[in-house]
Each structure stands twice: as C-alpha cells, then as structure tokens.
C-alpha cells in the first residue's frame, strides 16, 4: 500500500479550526487541519500530547459538541458536513459508519455492563430490525474475529474480568460490529504492554485488509505509525507541520520537528533492519 495510488476519497477535512473559549482569551487548539482519507487507507497522525491530534480525531468522530468550544472548517463525509449537520444526522453515522476506539480500554468500557451488551450496542441503536438472537451471534462472531478465545464466555463477562489487551480487543469488536467505513483509533496501544501493542497493531492491520476499513491511527509513537500507516500527518502545537507518505517522511523529513521526533525513536532503524533480515 502506497500513498501515491489514487483511491476513492471517503472523508475530507478542510481548514479545521478548534478553539477553546472557556478562558479569558480564546485558545487555539487546532489550526488549518486538512486531511483526505481514501477507502481502505491507514493514515497516521503523530505528535506529542497537546499537539491537537486527539482533538482533531474527536472532531471527526463528532464527539466535540461542547458549547465552550468553537469549531470551523468542513468535515465532509458522504455528502454531509459533520461539523454543521444536525445531531440526528450525525448520530446515524456514529458507531455505524464512523467508529472510534480510545486510549484507555480500562475506563472506556462501561464498568458494570456485560461485554456482550457493550459489543452489540451499535447494532441495537442503528439496526433495531436485527433481532436479539442474531445480534448475539454477530457479537460473538466479532469477538472471535478480534482474537478473543471462547467468545461465548467473554460475551457474558464484565470488563474487570479481562486484561487490558483483551479490553482493547473488545473495544475494537464493538467498534467494528457495524462494519464502519472509518475507524478512528486514538492512541489505542499507549496504555498497553509492548507485546500486546504489537498484537493490537496486527489486529488493526488485518481488519483493514479484510474489511477494507479506512483507519485513522493516532499515536505519539512514530515507530508504531511506521509499522501500520501508509501516510502520516505530523502535528505540533495544533498545526500540521508535515505530511506525506511514510517512506518520504522517514527517509527525507523536511521539518525540523519531524526530524527530532524521528531521532527520538529509540533505535528504530535497528529494529526495522532486523525485520528486513
């Protein structure tokens, strides 16, 4: 997969601005953010915390609806501008066409509801025509697909009975149950062990391949982004400082900040060399 090939664009973000208005002076959090996402593509957004990468992702997922926040620009998806369309329209996309998984699988799952209930929630909301039995079957099959053993048993378990990696798998299963066109993954592996990180990244890759889901992968970890993405946006202080294909950015970084980021990856070349051998 290479970024230079032209696919059908399913999401385009233009001139996205996000400002906080709860201080005396409005604070710009994201400025001039542009993104085009093609079908089946994995795009990475990299930057340190506070660079605005998570906020941009939340805006795309329609999860920034706070009154003290000012947003402008356009987020076009299926002919609708997600920034200006009404909530009802927005909701029809959320969880069905656009899904999101988060950094903290521990707290992002409801603590006292069963895994099954949470996994099939999107189906229950968007496809009430599907009956209970069918919903259960689909949820179990999805739980199996994301690599959970004994999905029937997991279906009746609670989040506190699972490990962090398993919880993130559940989050992915719940996000994928409606076969969305776009999956937004906001630092999905940051809270996990290194070995589990790799498994989750592999899972996302295989989902991308099998389902053709486009993925926006947000991380502060360039080496992860390199493993999974075809294109990368590098953000700093709310501004996209550099964007391009992964190879270009890693081999010929133009921006000073990008270079710093690459240099700060612990022995990334070494590990990738090993992989090549």
């Amino acid at each position, binding site marked *: 997969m290479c970024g230079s090939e032209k696919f059908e664009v399913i999401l385009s973000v233009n001139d996205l601005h996000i400002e*906080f208005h*709860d*201080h005396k002076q409005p604070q710009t959090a994201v400025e001039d953010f542009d993104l085009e996402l093609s079908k089946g593509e994995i795009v990475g957004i990299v930057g340190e*915390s506070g660079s605005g990468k*998570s*906020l941009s992702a*939340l805006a795309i997922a329609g999860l920034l609806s*706070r009154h*003290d926040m000012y947003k402008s620009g356009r987020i076009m998806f299926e002919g609708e501008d997600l920034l200006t369309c009404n909530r009802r329209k927005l909701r029809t996309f959320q969880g069905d066409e656009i899904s999101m998984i988060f*950094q*903290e699988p521990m*707290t992002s799952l409801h603590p006292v509801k069963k895994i099954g209930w949470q996994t099939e929630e999107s189906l229950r909301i968007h496809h009430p025509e599907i009956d209970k039995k069918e919903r259960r079957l689909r949820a179990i099959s999805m739980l199996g697909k994301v690599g959970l053993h004994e999905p029937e048993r997991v279906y009746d378990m609670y989040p506190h009975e699972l490990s962090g990696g398993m919880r993130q798998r559940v989050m992915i299963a719940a996000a994928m149950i409606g076969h969305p066109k776009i999956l937004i993954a*906001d630092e999905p592996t940051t809270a996990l062990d290194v070995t589990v990180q790799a498994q989750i990244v592999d899972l996302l890759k295989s989902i991308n391949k099998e389902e053709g889901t486009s993925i926006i992968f947000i991380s502060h970890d360039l080496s992860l982004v390199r493993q999974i993405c075809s294109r990368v946006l590098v953000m700093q202080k709310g501004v996209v400082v550099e964007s391009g294909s992964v190879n270009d950015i890693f081999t010929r970084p133009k921006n000073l900040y990008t270079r710093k980021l690459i240099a700060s990856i612990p022995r990334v070349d070494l590990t990738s060399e090993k992989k090549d051998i």
Partner: protein
Amino acid sequence: MKLSMIKKFKDKKINSFLLWGLILTGIMLLIVVIGIFWTPYDPTKMSASEKLQGISLRHILGTDNKGRDIFSRVMYGSRITLGIACGTMVIGAGLGTILGAITGYFGGFLDEVFMRIVDAMLAFPSILLALVIVSLFDSGNIVVMVALGIAFIPSFARIVRSEVLRCRTMDYVENARIQGASDFRIIFRHIMPNITGVLWSSVLIGFNNAVLAEAGLSYLGIGSQPPYDSLGNMLSSAQQFMVKNPICVLGPGFAIVWMVLGFSFLGEGLRKKA
C-alpha cells in the same frame, strides 16, 4: 486525552458557601457570646401581663405563654444547645479518633472485636442510641452530652480507622518505622497530621448532627430539663400556643436552622476549597 482533564478547565467558581458560612456562624456566635454577659430580659423571668405577645420593639421576638422574652430565651437556649454539641464532639470525636487510630494501627483480635462493637452500635441511628443511654440513666444536660458523645464514637472511630489503615502502609510511615520511631509517635506525629483534613470535615458534619440530635432529644422532653431550656425544649412547649402566637415556635426553630445552616455552609465551603 481523558475527559476529566477537559472538564477541569472550567471549574473555577467563587466560593460563596464559605463566605455565607462565616457570616451566619459569626453572627450566631456573636449573639451567643453576648448572651453570656447580657440578655435584653432575664430569660426565666415570667410576666403575667405580657403573655404571648407578637413582634414589637419591646420584645423583638415577642413573648411566650408565661410572658418570657423569646429573644432572650433563644440567646440562652442557643448557648445550651451549642455547649452540648461542643461537648458531644469533644467526647465523640476525641474518643472515636483515639480508639479508631489505635485499633486501626495495631489491628489483630482487638481490632476485630472493636469493629464488631462499632458495627453493633452503628446499627442504631445516633438519636436512638442516645435515647437509650439517657433512658438508662437520667435526663439532664450532662447525661445528654455524654450519651450523644458515646453515640458519635462509632462513626468517628470508623472514619479514623479506615484513614489510619490507608496511611499505615505509606512510605513515610515505613520510613519513620525504620528510623525507630515508637508506635505511639508514628500514630500521633506521623499519621494524624495527614488525616486532619478528613477529620475536620467529619467534625463539622458531626457538629450539625449533634445540634439536630440534641434539639430532637430535648424536643422529646428527654434532653435538658427546665429551667435550663435548650432550643428543643422551647419548641415543644411552644407548640401548643403556636396558633395564638406563631413566633413562639418560629423563633427557636429558626435559631436551630440558622446554626446548622452556618456550619453546613462552612463545611461545604471548606470542602470545595480543598
């Protein structure tokens, strides 16, 4: 990014609770202190010619069925109520803290037994427990104070015990132990200062409960006895005359509300500030 982090940005409110708490409590304390030295009338002096008067310049809260000045009586009764509540807190919070700290720190069999007793006592609402104790002995201010004090021991013991349990394994305690500090010293010099915050807010809440419980007991005629009437006594004797002169009940009643409100605002304000 955690959601709670975004939310923290905007939680900056002026603490009006603390301000109002200080104002209400300040005025109340001022009136009570003045009442020690001077009241407009003798609170026990009866007057056949001035029964059940309404609000006037002579009697700013009117008079009761025996012609006694209600404002003077409220000043006096507040002092009794406040005094009993203070005594209750000294006994309850004091003994509760010591017992909770010791059993929590040492644990073991003694702790188990003690906690069962505390559980047993907590099975009774504090007013009921005090009622039982008073019934076993006699009525009177001191008995009520001790009874309420005992009734408040379990809740304080439990709060302090759980705090001590939490602190016991902390690094600074371990450190003190390694340096050879005695258990006594560790409890009172190292652990206690760290739980004063929790303790103070419990004392404020407890104080309010003590005021309410004392008022309830003396309303039932079980608390303080005439002529040392507290606010509760005044309410129960005034209830029969409230049609003729509502101020009889409203005066002492609102004095209780004022007192409790002041302390609860203080507590709320301190909690928000922390």
